[in-house]
């Protein structure tokens, strides 16, 4: 289809806004997406294909989102890479290779630059905790004195590679209270707030650049063969909150030791189904199967026949194997296979494993961390912050470079992303495979990771757009696992991974390429949900803020419930446990979900909605009584319901609402 045609179709659908307007607001009546939108299908053809190029005036496609503001970088940060985001109070702190900017986002329709701080370093990954701000430096040009002239000497006392620590009690006057230098610098870092330790926070440093000279930082050894090599480890910095100037490395855990898992292709649902079918058919026909690495495979006759012969020989018989011989072999097979696998694994020489992690996401509430570490995704026990322990590792032949991790709120799933090509390459073209440069979703059971599926932003992008999986966060929609994720110039994609085998996109925003003639770096570094809005750090275009718009895939009640979750601060890689206050929106969100899934009868749903509506208008006493009765009724309904678990969650939400009527603000 000609792009002119495509454009007119998209315009008719109200999906494309051509003007890339600064500070545009569009929440007034008559906004592009009508409030009654109940559609559950993505627009077709995909309006993200064929968007006009332009730096600040690119074509745009938006679905189930509303842009609240688009704010260009302030003067000293124009044409310099914007990187990651951290949030505190009503401020967004945006890292930049030139330092950082602090945006007041109290009014998301009009972010105001609160302050900016010029101190060049890449990647200027930022985190915040109370009055402290942490900023990463990795490159060779970053200086301790924040000068912009670079550092020419290969050995220099002027160089900063590690983290800078600031006291930002006064945002406009950050005080550099400490720097911790590390051998490989800090590509990213993760602040770990240990629930048992109120005196300190810990910072995990992931550095991927080459080891610097020991003449520059004593003790830095680059030789892989040296037992004290700065490779094959992460660094843990302990920061005493009362004395951040005393922050120092307290351990360098070698979390990769003895990591020998082979690269294994994560099976697609189709592959698994096909293999199950083949195994079942083989078994029905009297064939032999074995479970190898959790998958049942059919054993070929060349493998089985010699074994059957040896069973015959073992009973000193001759001729064809009998039914009893087959049965004996069938019984012994699991043990034989398991011994063979062990013997094979013992033959494979241990390799040194990854030399570093790219990023680590800690989830202190459940004592776990997800480490995205070169060729592996790791699960770590972080209950002793200075001594993380590896619990498991996954590897995948479709993954190039394990980049970051996100747990679902229940801690029953973990999603890893693959930043294939480092973020500078166009990995979302029609010719790039769906499972390359994507997310891989795993379930977590008994602390074991089990592959489920891949997710990749589905709209093909051009050769001029760097595009690959990048940073994202959960959106606190109760009862569902929903995430918003940055895909560089592939835009942002909101998707539901409640069903880990079938992740589904439910909203998106995308712009055309920065430049139509060449690859020019741009797009979203990170898009995170923070207190009701989605904030995106656009590498070259600035700071964008969005809100969700209801559709058949996401209801207004679910959005309201998501907005009811308030955080005082957020470092996305220090994942907080999301807790929903008791609100009518929460109960109604569950009801909307039950209606969608048919997990409760239509009559029971409409009756519950009616009670909620009446309760909301009633006096405190009447409300409490009505809601309490509804909760009891729902408990009973749960037993026959299609989705008993969710009905019980609903009953619990209604019960909390009845017990705390003063909390039941009308949302």
């Amino acid at each position, binding site marked *: 289809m000609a792009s002119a045609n495509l454009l007119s179709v998209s315009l008719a659908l109200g999906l494309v806004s051509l003007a890339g307007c600064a500070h545009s607001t569009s929440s007034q009546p008559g906004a592009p997406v009508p409030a009654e939108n109940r559609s559950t299908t993505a627009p077709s053809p995909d309006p993200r294909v064929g968007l006009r190029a332009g730096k600040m005036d690119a074509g745009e496609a938006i679905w189930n989102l509303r842009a609240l503001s688009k704010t260009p970088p302030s003067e000293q940060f124009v*044409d*310099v*890479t914007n990187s990651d985001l951290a949030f505190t109070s009503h401020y967004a702190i945006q890292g930049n*290779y030139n330092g950082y900017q602090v945006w007041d986002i109290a009014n998301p329709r009009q972010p105001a630059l609160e302050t900016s701080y010029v101190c*060049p370093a*890449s990647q200027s990954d930022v985190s915040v905790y109370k009055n402290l701000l942490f900023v990463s430096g990795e*490159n*060779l*040009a970053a200086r301790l004195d924040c000068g*912009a*002239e*670079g*550092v*020419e*000497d*290969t050995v220099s006392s002027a160089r900063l590679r590690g983290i800078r620590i600031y006291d930002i009690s006064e945002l406009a006057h950050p005080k550099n209270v400490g720097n911790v230098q590390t051998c490989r610098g800090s590509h990213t870092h993760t602040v770990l707030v240990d629930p048992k330790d109120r005196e300190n926070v810990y910072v995990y440093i992931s550095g*991927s*650049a*080459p080891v610097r000279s020991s003449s520059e930082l004593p003790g830095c050894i680059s*030789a*892989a*063969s040296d037992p004290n090599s700065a490779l094959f480890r992460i660094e843990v910095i302990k920061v005493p909150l009362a004395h951040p100037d005393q922050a120092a490395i307290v351990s360098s855990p070698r979390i990769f030791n003895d990591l*020998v898992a*082979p*690269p294994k292709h994560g099976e697609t649902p189709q592959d698994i189904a096909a293999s199950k079918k083949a195994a079942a058919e083989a078994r029905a026909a009297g064939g032999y199967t074995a479970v190898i690495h959790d998958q049942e495979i059919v054993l070929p006759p060349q493998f089985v026949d010699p074994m059957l012969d040896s069973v015959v020989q073992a009973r000193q018989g001759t001729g064809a194997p009998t039914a009893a011989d087959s049965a004996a072999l069938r019984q012994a097979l699991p043990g034989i296979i398991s011994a063979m696998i062990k013997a094979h694994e013992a*033959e*494979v*020489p241990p*390799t*040194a*494993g*990854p*030399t570093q992690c*790219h990023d680590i996401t800690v989830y202190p509430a459940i004592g776990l961390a997800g480490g995205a570490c*070169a*060729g592996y995704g790791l699960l770590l026990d972080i209950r002793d912050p200075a001594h993380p322990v590896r619990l498991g590792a996954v590897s995948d*032949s*479709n993954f*190039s*470079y394990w980049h970051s991790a996100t747990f679902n709120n229940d801690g029953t799933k973990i999603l890893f992303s693959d930043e*294939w*090509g*480092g*973020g*500078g*390459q*166009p*990995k979302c073209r029609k010719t*790039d495979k769906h499972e*390359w440069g994507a997310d891989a979703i795993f379930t977590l059971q008994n602390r074991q990771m089990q592959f489920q599926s891949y997710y990749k932003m589905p709209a093909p992008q051009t050769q001029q757009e760097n595009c690959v999986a990048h940073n994202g966060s959960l959106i606190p929609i109760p009862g569902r696992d929903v995430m918003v994720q940055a895909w560089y110039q592939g835009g942002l994609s909101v998707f539901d991974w409640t069903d880990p085998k079938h992740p589904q996109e439910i909203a998106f925003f995308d712009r055309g390429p920065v*430049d139509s003639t*060449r*690859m*020019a770096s741009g797009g979203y570094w990170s898009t995170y949900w923070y207190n009701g809005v989605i904030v995106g750090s656009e590498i070259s275009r600035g700071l964008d803020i969005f809100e969700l718009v209801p559709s058949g895939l996401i209801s207004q009640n679910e959005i309201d419930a998501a907005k009811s979750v308030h955080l005082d601060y957020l470092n996305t890689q220090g994942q907080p446990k999301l807790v929903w206050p008791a609100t009518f929106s929460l109960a109604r969100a569950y009801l909307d979900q039950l209606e969608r899934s048919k997990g409760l009868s239509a009559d029971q749903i409409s009756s519950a909605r009616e009670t909620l509506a009446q309760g909301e208008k009633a006096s405190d006493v009447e409300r409490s009584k009505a809601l309490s009765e509804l909760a009891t009724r729902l408990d009973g309904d749960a037993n026959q319901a299609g989705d008993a678990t969710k009905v019980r969650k609903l009953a619990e939400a209604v019960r909390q609402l009845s017990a705390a009527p003063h909390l039941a603000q009308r949302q």
Partner: protein
Amino acid sequence: MTISHWRHSPALITALALAACTSTHRGAVQTAPQPAAHHETSPPATAKARADSLRHPYTAADVDFMSHMIGHHAQALVMAGWAPSHGANPSVQILAERIINAQQDEIATMQQWLRDRGKPVPEARPTGTKMMMNGVEHEMLMPGMLTEEQMKQLDQARGPEFDRRFLTFMIQHHRGAVAMVQSLFGTNAAAQDETVFKFANDASVDQSTEIARMERMLAALPASSGSP
């Protein structure tokens, strides 16, 4: 085992590269001397290139790195391109497909970086790099690049033997690229340019990860009588 032979042997790689040099001048892998204070003056370049190099001017070492890595990558494309026709096993074929995809894109990045700065843009040819030394032109193989003889050995192999040679040679080839990055970062005033630092670091990290993967694949290949 071949792997342990290769591991921790940057000296061996350098030796290989030197042996491949058609000239007798030692140390020729490092090209023109790069005095710390010498910054090239910006040629008429696009505004974007200026923005990229705004703070820290690039040096001759940066230009050499970007130029020389193109031929290095081009050889990987030829090697990987043989996988389907030479009976590689499926996992080696997938690896080869990924290498082609990754290195083709990276060649485009390097060519654009050079073009933006008005520098000569080498074509993606799997040959050595032409260098002038003492007024004489020499063709140099960058670290880790396969010699003509090694390329012939790989081209002649089929099936499992191709897999073994491909992995062995590609590990050598990748190690050379990582060594080139280390050498760049060890040069005064080099890689201050943001694009060069990021590109070189990403290439080093990706290829180191791929080396570890190839080592494991090599170890998992079925045993054979002929050792590479």
